[in-house]
């Protein structure tokens, strides 16, 4: 028993020390050996973007054996902080850096928009409606309307299933679907992951929530927004407004390996392959553009 414990401790220590050692080495090598494309990249942040980053990183590493890419979650705030502090090469974020960091810190970061993610309000299947207007959504999420019959559904109490107030998904939904920040109402449910939100919405009578497009399926009702369905085409032509960019931030211009990786994600192969498969929308498809302040241009 004792021996096993000692062994386990030694192993943990070795691994953690090795990890520390690696980082120092990589920082040096990525600067000097740019031509042969080697080095290691640490991409930290948004869990919504993690799957895409992970899949593409695997494929990129298969092609470039000299590069090792580590993808970690932790949330958009963590990603932005770590890339701004130089601890990570790439900071994954659901929101513009300007929304989370100080202006002067955000100015040091370079934005690479790798995909677009659209969100839709969803409800339990028993509520009896298939769409809501913007005003109705605002009324529901600010607690003015508490029964489905007030918005044309059946007589049932509305149960809000929200994301935590710091979440990037919630920020996007509030900004583009509601147009206002909302409080966590008494009795509302805040869940950390989209998977749990979906499970709760599908199981809880009278539940309403919102999910990224990749999570939508038949177990829940996807609500139209002002009569517009959440489809790829509607998002691309600008008629469906609840969407956001997925950002990969680098501090200043990226080094060669990081740049190659970002270029690979921006390539048609990934944009029309993995990006679409994982439920994101390729940035190239978008006929409208949006800046950090939320202004939309054709």
């Amino acid at each position, binding site marked *: 028993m004792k021996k096993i414990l000692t062994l386990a401790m030694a192993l943990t220590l070795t691994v953690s020390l090795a990890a520390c050692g690696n980082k120092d080495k990589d920082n040096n090598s990525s600067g000097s050996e740019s031509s042969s494309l080697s080095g290691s990249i640490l991409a930290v942040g948004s869990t919504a973007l993690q799957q895409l980053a992970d899949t593409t990183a695997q494929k990129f590493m298969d092609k470039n054996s000299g590069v090792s890419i580590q993808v970690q979650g*932790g949330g958009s705030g*963590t990603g932005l902080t770590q890339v701004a502090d130089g601890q990570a090469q790439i900071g994954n974020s659901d929101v513009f850096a300007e929304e*989370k960091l100080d202006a002067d810190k955000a100015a040091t970061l370079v934005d690479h928009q790798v995909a677009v993610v659209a969100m839709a309000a969803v409800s339990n299947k028993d509520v009896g409606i298939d769409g809501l207007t913007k005003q109705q959504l605002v009324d529901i999420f600010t607690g003015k309307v508490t029964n489905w019959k007030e918005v044309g559904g059946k007589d049932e109490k509305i149960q809000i299933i929200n994301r935590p107030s*710091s*979440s990037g998904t919630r920020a996007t939904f509030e900004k583009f679907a509601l147009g206002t920040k909302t409080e*966590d*109402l*008494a009795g509302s449910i805040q869940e950390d992951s989209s998977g*749990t939100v979906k499970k709760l919405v599908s199981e809880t009578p009278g539940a309403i929530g919102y999910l990224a497009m990749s999570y939508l399926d038949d177990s829940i009702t996807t609500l139209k927004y002002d009569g517009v369905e959440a489809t790829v085409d509607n998002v691309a032509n600008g008629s469906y407004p609840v969407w956001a960019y997925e950002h990969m931030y680098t501090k200043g211009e990226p080094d060669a390996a990081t740049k190659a990786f970002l270029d690979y994600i921006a390539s048609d192969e990934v944009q029309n392959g993995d990006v679409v498969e994982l439920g994101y929308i390729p940035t190239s498809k978008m006929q409208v553009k949006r800046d950090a302040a939320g202004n939309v241009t054709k």
Partner: protein
Amino acid sequence: MERSVNMERSYNKRQEAKPHIAEEWVGKIYTFICIAFLVITIFSMVYFVASKGLSTFIVNGVNAFDLITGVKWNPDIDIPQFGALPFIFGSFSTSILAAIIAAPLGFCAAVFIVELAPKFGRRFLQPVIELLAGIPSVVYGFVGLSVIVPLFRDLFPGQGIGIAAGALVLSVMILPTITTIATDALSELPAGLKEGSYALGATRWQTIYRVALPTTMPQQMTGIVLGIARAFGEALAVQMVIGNAPHIPHSLFESTSTLTSAITLSMGNTAMGSVQNNVLWSLALILMLMTFVFVFIIRFLEGRKKL
């Protein structure tokens, strides 16, 4: 001639002793390094959490009193409000309720293991209960979300989530802690005490109730406090079933939040150094101070041992 042989012997002896001295030193140094490592880890952790947690009050100018007594939690609006009382209330109510559920169960299981069926209890029941401690908390959370929440939704008004669901999940999680300590306490009970009780004509239940329970009370309390401390610090399983609305609930079946779930929900999404992030460290500081209080209570109870 004889003398030289003797001298050689004693020289050999000294040679043999040398490796032992070396071993002694290796042991000492190894132990010292381990202890130093532990102490440094603990102190740097306390320092880190404290410096981060206090910067909410020092750098960001949030009133500490408002944080502890405020009931409004709106960190992301223009004039943020940081009232953590709902979290503190949620943490205490879930963990104490969990202990209230788990303590009688744990004590009865211990009585069964030690007094009623020692063979079966020791060999099967105890390992099974201790196995509960090894189940990952996310599994508890998922079972809670998939079984307990729908059950409560059908049985009680509300959506099933809330303090009741959280406390029930936690009570199963802390059951092994309470049971193990209760079992140890009962088996340490001197046979003479029990035999004396039997000799006076007491039945088995009277002996357990009048002799075993009062005598081992401090240890039982230690187990319960340890259980509460464990429940207090548990984050993931509770977060999944409690609903996480930052409000003091009106019933056991209404969405509320705990200190730990508030931290895990937002820690990754907030930028380091921002007031929204610092205030989470303040919550962590409160959590840590509470753990210290629990440790002191346990030390106090240890001193009151009657055996």
